[in-house]
């Protein structure tokens, strides 16, 4: 098959399709995932091709979706659950943190929980309340879950398949504003990197910028702009949030001596806190400045007309870079 240019939405759709072809135990469950193909069309065409028994339109109840998916997983299936929007994962929170996360532990490994919970996350799409949340820190804080975020079409294609193949439950975060934003070339014959690894996406020497999901693009733009000003940023796409892949991060920060973390989630108790704490523990003597965090402010997500002020953008990232450099 020849290479093709695809969007993130397409990459995910193709990845889901591939996973369903490869393993008849893979099921898709969620609201509107059938004929509609999901409100973002990520499951477009899958019910038509795999039938209603494998692409399961559900009643409107997130706890019910995740809870029945637990039962399916216990029966040997590999459910891929779609949560329609980040803000609607909370009715399922109990099932996720008390059941999905703990089943393997509780059962001494006898019950596996090979479940993927897909969550379109983050803001920037001009939506109403509850449609732009970034709930990752809460899941990363929960042992038993693994949490990843894709940032581009090619990763979308591979990572969703790898998440489905994982015998552990994976919270799979998809930056919704990237769904149809950029295209990238997919080589289906390539060998992807392992799922739980971070990746240096731009090399640099002055400051390490850590990002994931939607902020990878922001960080790349910031690096571009900084280069124009003679500052060399190294950008790392974390990809995995739990576990964290600290290897590339520490290696980079030991070189640059400075780190800026950026995410859309609230700064307070966000991923940036953990990264800051770990980097400081591990690179104490290499650090020229404290790890700085650029994220969503510690307010509820605001009305969308001012969401660009809430969200980290390249200016705020560069501001943090400058503050780091002038420490």
């Amino acid at each position, binding site marked *: 098959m020849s290479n093709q240019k695809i969007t993130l939405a397409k990459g995910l759709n193709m990845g889901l399709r591939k996973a369903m072809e490869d393993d008849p135990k893979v099921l898709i469950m969620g609201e509107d995932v059938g004929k509609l193909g999901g409100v973002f069309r990520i499951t477009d065409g899958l019910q038509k091709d795999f039938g209603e028994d494998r692409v399961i339109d559900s*009643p409107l109840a997130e706890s019910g979706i995740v809870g029945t998916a637990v039962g399916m997983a216990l029966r040997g299936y590999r459910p891929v659950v779609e949560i329609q929007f980040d803000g609607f994962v909370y009715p399922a929170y109990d099932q996720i943190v008390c059941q999905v996360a703990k089943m393997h532990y509780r059962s001494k490994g006898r019950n596996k929980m090979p479940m993927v919970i897909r969550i379109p996350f983050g803001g920037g799409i001009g939506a109403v309340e509850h449609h732009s949340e970034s709930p990752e820190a809460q899941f990363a804080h929960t042992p038993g879950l693994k949490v990843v975020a894709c940032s581009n079409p090619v990763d979308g294609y591979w990572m969703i398949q790898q998440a489905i193949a994982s015998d552990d439950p994976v919270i799979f975060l998809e930056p919704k504003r990237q769904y149809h934003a950029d295209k990238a070339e997919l080589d289906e014959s390539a060998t992807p990197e392992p799922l739980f690894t971070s990746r240096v996406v731009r090399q640099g020497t002055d400051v390490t910028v850590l990002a994931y999901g939607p902020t990878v693009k922001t960080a790349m733009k910031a690096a571009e702009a900084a280069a124009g000003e003679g500052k060399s940023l190294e950008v790392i796409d974390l990809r995995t949030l739990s576990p964290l892949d600290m290897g590339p991060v520490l290696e980079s920060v030991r070189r640059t001596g400075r780190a800026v973390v950026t995410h859309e989630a609230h700064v307070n108790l966000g991923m940036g806190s953990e990264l800051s704490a770990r980097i400081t523990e591990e690179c104490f003597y290499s650090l020229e400045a404290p790890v700085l965090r650029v994220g969503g402010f510690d307010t509820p997500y605001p*009305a969308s007309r001012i969401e660009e*002020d809430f969200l980290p953008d390249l200016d705020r990232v560069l501001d943090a870079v400058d503050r780091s450099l002038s420490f």
Partner: protein
Amino acid sequence: MTQSGSPGFGPDLVEVFGPSQQDGGPELIQLLTPEGERVEHPEFSFGAGLSADEEAEMVRGFYRDMVLTRRIDTEATALQRHGELGIWAQLLGQEAAQIGAGRALRPQDYVFPTYREHGVAYCRGVDPLNLLGLFRGVDHGAWDPNENNFGLYTIVIGAQTLHATGYAMGMQRDGVVGTGDPERDAAVIAHFGDGASSQGDVNEAFIFAASYNAPVVFFCQNNQWAISEPIERQTRIPLYQRALGFGFPGVRVDGNDVLATYAVTQAALQRARDGQGPTFVEAYTYRMGAHTTTDDPTRYRLSDDVEHWKLKDPIARVEVYLKRNGLADDAFFEGVKAEADDLGHHLREGCKALPDPQPLSMFDHVYAEETEELRAEREGYAAYLESFEGSTTAGGHS
């Protein structure tokens, strides 16, 4: 329902959604047919105690309400198409359900809406311009909930049904239930959709309301769809029967019949005000439009169905009724049309004039008592913004 089944467990519940269901089945309470004929119902009636003139006045009022409500909806839809709103949740086809319910309320009652209750908001005296703000993205709700006893729109499906129940429990504690004083006795109405009926929260609301005999009417607009999920995905028996399992009455009313919806809701509210507890009202209707302006219903439903429901238009039947019985003249209809045009103008002009919020307003109202750390964050961002003042772009680099 077929009548065969396993011994001891009663009839099997298959094929409950046969063709008769599309018309609401025999349990549908109707007082005005799609053809504009008044019909009798053994239990519910419209206009009892009113003179013929008073009654006609009320029906004309409903007509006007519905026309204006529809205009709000079509204007907002158009504004969304023109990029003035981010999204709009259309109510097309649900005008009778909302006006019937909205007009059955007394001032002291309290409403917990979903995101689609534009007609009820209108009945409560909320300036429809305020509704647009939310969909334009200038705020999360611009009206004062306590001014008209009309709560803010709730987007997380079903969450508000618990708030409604708790509010009703508060009314019980305030001694405004079952006193017999019509100025004093109050009730709550909780709006939700057919899809919402599957949420745990909604079912818990039923349990709490029943357990405490709370004065709340659960008003469900069964518009047959939850985005692309048909009602059959949420229940395999008529939805109003859900209430029976919780030990309070449920009824199905023709939600496209404003007279019946008014009569039934009014009676349910009165039950609540009288201290007789909760009632479930299923307003059987149809979502004529898309779920929202970003939805594409052609992917999941047949245009035949839409055509079928067009014949049951809630406004047309009242118009026919008024005209056929000489209860309204041309001047009336022209007057309503003119009012609607004015309203349209108000919305178009007003919407475009809605001011964008100030960036720093993002930090307002997070807490009743602001924290030091939030103040510092706000000040930090203010200083950051000021650092760009004078530069050509908002940011230095973008």
